[in-house]
């Protein structure tokens, strides 16, 4: 589904060269729920931006759903983002002037669906996150958790191959966070591939694969057993810290 091979990303200021990612390789299979953790400045965001085709990379090879990203122009990248990727941002990133309906509608517009098709998809997506009744609300009229669920609906509406979530619960209290996570887990069980950057070790442990990025390099913890429960999580956290 997603395959990165020796990807490097270098930020260059006047005098200093910073390796944000160094020979970064990762394979994500269809249906996986991957949690990416790591300290601030480790390269998590760079990874997500590159994975989401928001940012270019300097070296290496990146295939998304069988398409080699190398050499694609801006229009082609936009098209790929629109069709294959669903974004969920930490700060929701809804258009404040648009209603919930219009916000979810936005990526579908760029896809060029008919209005009937769009309406159907928007309603389906909002149904999934339990906000179908709020279609005509403005984002400011919703709670943070509801806003994030709208963002998820927006990401889902286009039936992307992969969902990229950037600390989706970072701005939410624990109750709301749990609701959002439940939706993501449910989507995963229905077959969605999800990559999620998170700070929360509980969330990281609750998914089936956990990778950590430190100084632009990757440590892959491989696949957790699905039956692993929260009670054993504490020791794993210690492991993470000692790596």
């Amino acid at each position, binding site marked *: 589904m997603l395959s990165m091979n020796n990807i490097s990303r270098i930020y260059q200021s006047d005098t200093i060269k910073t390796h944000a990612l160094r020979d970064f390789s990762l394979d994500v299979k269809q249906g996986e729920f991957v949690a990416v953790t790591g300290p601030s400045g480790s390269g998590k965001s760079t990874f997500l*931006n590159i994975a989401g085709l*928001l940012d270019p990379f300097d070296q290496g090879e990146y295939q998304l759903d069988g398409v080699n990203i190398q050499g694609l122009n*801006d229009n082609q990248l936009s098209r790929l983002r629109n069709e294959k990727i669903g*974004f969920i*941002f930490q700060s929701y*990133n809804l258009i404040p002037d648009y209603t919930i309906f*219009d916000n979810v509608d936005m990526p579908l517009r*760029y896809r060029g669906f008919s209005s009937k098709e769009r309406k159907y998809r928007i309603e389906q997506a909002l149904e999934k996150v339990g906000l179908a009744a709020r279609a005509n609300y403005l984002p400011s009229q919703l709670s943070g958790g509801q806003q994030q669920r709208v963002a998820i609906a*927006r990401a889902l509406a286009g039936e992307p191959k992969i969902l990229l979530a950037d600390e989706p619960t970072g701005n939410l209290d624990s109750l709301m966070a749990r609701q959002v996570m439940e939706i993501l887990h449910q989507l995963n069980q229905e077959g969605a591939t999800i990559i999620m950057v998170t700070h929360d070790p509980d969330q990281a442990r609750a998914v089936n694969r956990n990778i950590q990025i430190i100084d632009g390099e990757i440590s892959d913890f491989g696949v957790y057993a699905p039956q692993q429960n929260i009670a054993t999580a504490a020791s794993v956290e210690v492991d993470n810290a000692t790596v």
Partner: protein
Amino acid sequence: MNIKALIKSLLLRKFTTGLLLLQLALTLALLVNSGILTLDTHAKLTQQTGIDKENTILIDFVPTSPDYADRDFYLSVINRDIATIKEIPGVIDVAPSNQRPMQFGGFNSNMHDVNNPEQEQLNNGLRYVAEFYSNGSLTNVFNLKLVEGRQLTELDNVANSNEAPIVVTHSLAKALYGEESALGKVTNRGHIVGVVEDFKIRANQPLDNQYGFFKSQIFTGANWMNHYFIRVEPGMLESVQAQLKDTLISLQADRDIREVASLNKYLEIFFGDDIGLAKLFALLCALMVLVTAISSFAHAQFHITKQRRLIGIRRALGARKRDILIYVLGENWILTVFGLIVGVFAVVAVNMLLSSVITLNKPSLWLYLLATAVIFISGTLATLLPAWQTSRIPPVIATRSI
């Protein structure tokens, strides 16, 4: 482009949107009304005068020497002038005149049939009938066709005013005698021997309501302005005009030649005020368009700075650069469309306002469309640069936390 969402979001910013709409509407109103003014002025300049404007030259002169107080001297100067001008190649005919056509004041007198002096009370126009004193050939120089009777000749110079033969304009004949023939009738200003087509004597009256009469008597008021009119063959105007001043001065130097101009040029001078006002309005239009452009530009520019992140999100969700370009331009277009709709009322309101002060025609559809196009194009051009800059906002902005 999601037009409905765009409109809804504009409605959320009611104040700003309202300001922009009002601004667009007023700009449109001024553009249209300036257009009307320009067209009105153009119509005045190109109106039918009944005279061949292209091929007629006007000379204004004022005697500066006391010699001219002697009528015989003055007449001898005029006769020599006429004889000399007639010799210039290209000249068809020349005549002196005490006044110009196409003016507001001038030499006027009252007029009535000798048997019916009450006519004047019934028709106020008969109290201000333009009197043209010439040598008999002025109607020929103006190229006025005879409706009935005959033209005047130099032999018609009769001092006694009641018996002097006169030629009247068609509308004057009708005002005096209705459908009856005016030939042979006697007025307080002379007896009528001919009726000619109407021509534009009073600038503010329609062509078919021009009271004037001609007398074969040359005006020689010392100290007053006097005139010659010269009809030339087509294409000869400039070559004739170029030598007139020197010719006249070489014949008699003691006079101030105030003007040598084609009647076309004279109309431009006569309507100089209207042309000036039209130019001022044109200047204002340019300023208006400039301000509209500033507004469009700044709106796109600063509104977009604020929306950087939102644009980034759109890009992240798959909008191409072209989509963003259209999105920014689209907002301008939608505002313009609504401004232009509101503008219809503004156009009418400003037209009414201005009509209360100056004479102004009613707005026309195609002027409205023209002004619309101007606003659309200037707005789009002004938005293009910021729109292009906006489309270059990288999608990665979306994931940066504030």
